[in-house]
């Protein structure tokens, strides 16, 4: 019998039984250097973290709603249902002073003046793991465009969202959103695929309804114990109303957009303190917006007016290719270094903007480094800089220095200064907008062609510059469940680019001094209760009075989330926002209040897990969002989600 047993080549280890292999075998490095979140006390500046619980409790329907919960931020909905997000004002309908990254991929659009196209993120709120908002400029780590701050959106690892997820939202103002997600795995590959649709009617009395459809794929594959490959793809197709009823110069029309991206990130991890990362992505977006504008010139009696018409070809196509290599390592037990380089190529083709079908291109090369040096147990120095070579804005060095002093585990005081730049966009540098007008005068005069130039950029712009000095405090009182985060800032912005003249030219025209104090108290006394209190005081002085009014002087937000008996979840947000104005196509907005409520009931039945929620946004009186005539009325919607 024993012979029979041993005639087998070896005694197979029955699967599922513990053996020494469990102790001896290698495991993948999961919490790698880039995945480890820096404790807030070590962060080189003020950071607001928005986690999944917060995203849910906020009742946010779209990502921009979340930034209403970050001190110092302004959020609005501009022309054509375009969301705008600003920190400390200085923003128009193209919010371009902030860098936004989704899993390390810049979603800053190079089209027109440059902006974040929040409607085209190809991302569902449910796929977000957390959002880190770095308040204050950080070009040293994130390059130009990280001018006033950085929004880092980190999506969930697919292993965290396995199975099927369905969600449907229906509400007033035509709100109708659906999300379908499936997460699965195949050997060492975990993946998820999300498809979603979002639509609403925008503001009453405006032609600004929008529809967005998207698919997004993320696959994470473990190649070896050290190597991980992440692949992402996404595509979207949007349409939004633009123009005004009865306007012949800005007629009602539909803007159709579509685009896609592909991204690959390869990480090689040598343990928790050394890692190489290669990040490559490509994205293309195009918009089609072709319409006819009409006008007329009155002629002396008895001649009828001369009729004018022009075809506006606002079709555009933008592309970006980005390659980045980053290396994190420990210099010695007290010092950690992150360094790397990036190469980026961007192009924008727009006949309307450049008066040529030829794509306009930008090349960008960056070399960056940051040293995190623990000088003494209580002292941490972060010194970083980025050298950026831009094909027409020249070469700039953006340095950043932050000293953190932590006299006890509860208290951290940070002091620092930085210089950052925003490169001029292609349109600011090269815009040449010409309307080719056909004029039909009264008979017997023959039709004639006219050219009207509305933008003629002279070029040679310098990047906008911001010099920041800041002092901040972080109090973490774990036994009370209380976190205090306060930031006092002094931001000296110069060479602000603005358009002027007729035809319009872009010039480095203005300066602004932004000073203020903002804080957030976050109190989580028990697992069931969360209270946030944000307050921001901002004062801007500028040679341009519109800029001086571009941030509310006072803004306060109170957020409460409470678990109720029976499993119910209630949350409430109340904003008090002072008088302000957005720049560009806007006018001064009076102060307003806004109250949002959310009531949710999570349930579980067999393999099904789900939640039913109702949200009311702006329970208080209607207020103006971006212009006085963009009235934000009460919005109600209900969401049902199911997971199995």
């Amino acid at each position: 019998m024993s012979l029979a047993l041993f005639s087998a080549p070896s005694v197979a280890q029955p699967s599922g039984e513990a053996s020494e292999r469990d102790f001896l075998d290698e495991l993948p490095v999961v919490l790698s250097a880039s995945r480890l979140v820096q404790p807030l006390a070590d962060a080189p500046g003020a950071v607001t973290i928005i986690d999944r619980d917060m995203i849910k409790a906020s009742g946010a329907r779209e990502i921009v709603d979340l930034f209403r919960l970050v001190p110092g931020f302004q959020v609005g909905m501009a022309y054509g249902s375009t969301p705008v997000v600003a920190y400390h004002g200085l923003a128009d309908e193209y919010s371009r002073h902030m860098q936004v990254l989704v899993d390390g991929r810049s979603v800053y659009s190079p089209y027109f003046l440059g902006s974040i196209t929040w409607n085209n993120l190809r991302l569902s709120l449910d796929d977000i793991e957390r959002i880190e908002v770095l308040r204050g400029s950080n070009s040293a780590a994130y390059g130009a465009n990280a001018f006033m701050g950085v929004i880092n959106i980190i999506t969930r690892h697919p292993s965290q969202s396995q199975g099927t997820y369905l969600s449907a939202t229906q509400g007033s103002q035509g709100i109708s959103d659906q999300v379908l997600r499936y997460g699965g795995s195949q050997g060492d590959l975990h993946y998820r695929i999300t498809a979603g649709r979002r639509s609403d009617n925008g503001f009453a009395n405006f032609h600004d309804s929008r529809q967005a459809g998207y698919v997004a794929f993320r696959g994470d594959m473990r190649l070896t114990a050290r190597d991980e490959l992440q692949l992402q793809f996404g595509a979207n197709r949007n349409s939004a109303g633009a123009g005004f009823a009865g306007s012949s110069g800005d007629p009602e029309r539909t803007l159709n957009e579509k685009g896609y991206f592909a991204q690959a990130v390869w990480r090689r991890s040598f343990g928790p303190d050394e890692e190489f990362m290669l990040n490559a992505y490509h994205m293309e977006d195009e918009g089609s917006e072709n319409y006819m504008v009409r006008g007329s010139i009155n002629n002396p009696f008895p001649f009828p007016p001369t009729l004018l018409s022009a075809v506006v070809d606002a079709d555009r196509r933008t592309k970006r290719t980005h390659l980045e290599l980053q290396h994190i390592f420990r210099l010695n037990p007290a010092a950690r270094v992150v360094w790397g380089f990036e190469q980026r190529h961007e192009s924008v083709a727009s006949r309307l903007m450049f008066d040529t079908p030829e794509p306009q291109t930008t090349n960008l090369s960056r070399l960056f480094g940051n040293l995190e040096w623990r000088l003494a147990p209580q002292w941490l120095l972060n010194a970083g800089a980025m050298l950026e070579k831009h094909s027409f804005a020249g070469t700039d060095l953006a340095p950043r220095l932050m000293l953190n002093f932590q006299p006890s585990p509860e208290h951290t005081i940070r002091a620092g200064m930085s210089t950052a730049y925003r490169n001029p966009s292609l349109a600011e540098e090269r815009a040449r907008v010409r309307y080719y007008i056909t004029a039909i005068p009264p008979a017997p005069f023959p039709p004639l062609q006219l050219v009207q130039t509305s933008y003629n950029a002279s070029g040679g712009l310098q990047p906008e510059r911001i010099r920041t000095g800041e002092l901040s405090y972080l109090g973490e009182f774990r036994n009370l469940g209380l976190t205090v985060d306060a930031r006092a800032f002094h931001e000296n912005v110069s060479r602000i680019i603005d358009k002027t003249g007729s035809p319009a030219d872009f010039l480095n025209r203005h300066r602004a001094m932004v000073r203020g104090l903002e804080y957030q108290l976050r109190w989580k006394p028990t697992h069931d209760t969360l209270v946030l209190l944000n307050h921001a005081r901002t004062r801007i002085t500028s040679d341009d009075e519109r800029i001086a009014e571009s941030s509310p002087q006072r803004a306060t937000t109170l957020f409460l989330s409470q678990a109720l008996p029976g499993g119910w979840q209630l949350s409430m947000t109340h904003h008090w926002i002072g008088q302000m104005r957005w720049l560009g196509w806007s006018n001064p907005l009076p102060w307003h209040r806004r109250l949002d409520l959310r009531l949710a009931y999570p349930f579980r039945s067999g393999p099904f897990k789900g939640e039913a929620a109702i949200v009311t946004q702006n329970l208080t009186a209607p207020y103006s969002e971006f212009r006085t005539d963009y009235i934000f009325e009460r919005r109600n919607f209900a969401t049902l989600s199911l997971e199995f």
Partner: protein
Amino acid sequence: MAMAWPALAGAGEVAVVMSEDTAVYRAVAETIQSQLEGAAAVDIVDIPALRNPKRKDLRFLVAIGSQAARAAAASSIEAPLLVTLLPRSAFDRLAAERRRAADPRPLSALYLDQPIGRQLDLIRLTMPNARRIGVLLGPESDNLLIPLQKAAQEKQMHLVAQRVGRDSEIAPALQKLLPEIDALLALPDPSVFNASTIQLILLATYRQQLPLFGFSAAYVRAGAIASLHATPEQIGNQAGDMLRTGLARSQLPPSRYSGQYTLATNPHVAHSLGIPLEGEPALMQRLQQLEVR
């Protein structure tokens, strides 16, 4: 094969059989060999050598690893068997089989895993306020529930357990478990903790800002805050000690856990979780003091 591997017909009083001829098993075997130098001659063999069970003068048979242990237990060799470099659950299964077969041959073990009490002590030292210790129990670790609960009680801790049958049940189990606990303790059960599930487990615990305590150096590299484990040399040393005693008394000492062990910590993970962590030597010293008491 007979050239490379002395058959059990060799001259030694102690035969050490390895599950496979790789560095780890070699390290244990050679440490035993050098430990017994002067006391007994040791032959190092592989599993097929057990087919030749003619030896009568063999005093002890040592099996390194689970496969070797199973093969040695199934062989007809009469000598008392010491098994090592295997987890306690694997040994318990062997011992139960022998009991069922009413096999009278003496059997003893030096376990590879660390005693639960010692692991709880480590959690206590790194997180003095941790009271609720979570575990995920699979088919292999299910029977640990009672001893775990008892050990936790002795340390004034509370054990919170979730049962997991299949891979797909891990995520929902963690979702229930993590809000209820202060730390998660990994247990050697390959249907719950393995190279493909560790990612999910570590990401989920980390998201909840909770530390995972592992049971090998690989766990600490992967992202566990700390682990206690015995190195192959430490196992070899202890097995050598047991054999010396055995040779002197002509009887194997009873099964036990390794008294020598190594502590590994991941200061980066601890720092990111906001858990102040002492250096490894200081922590080790305090742990050993606790055990003496």
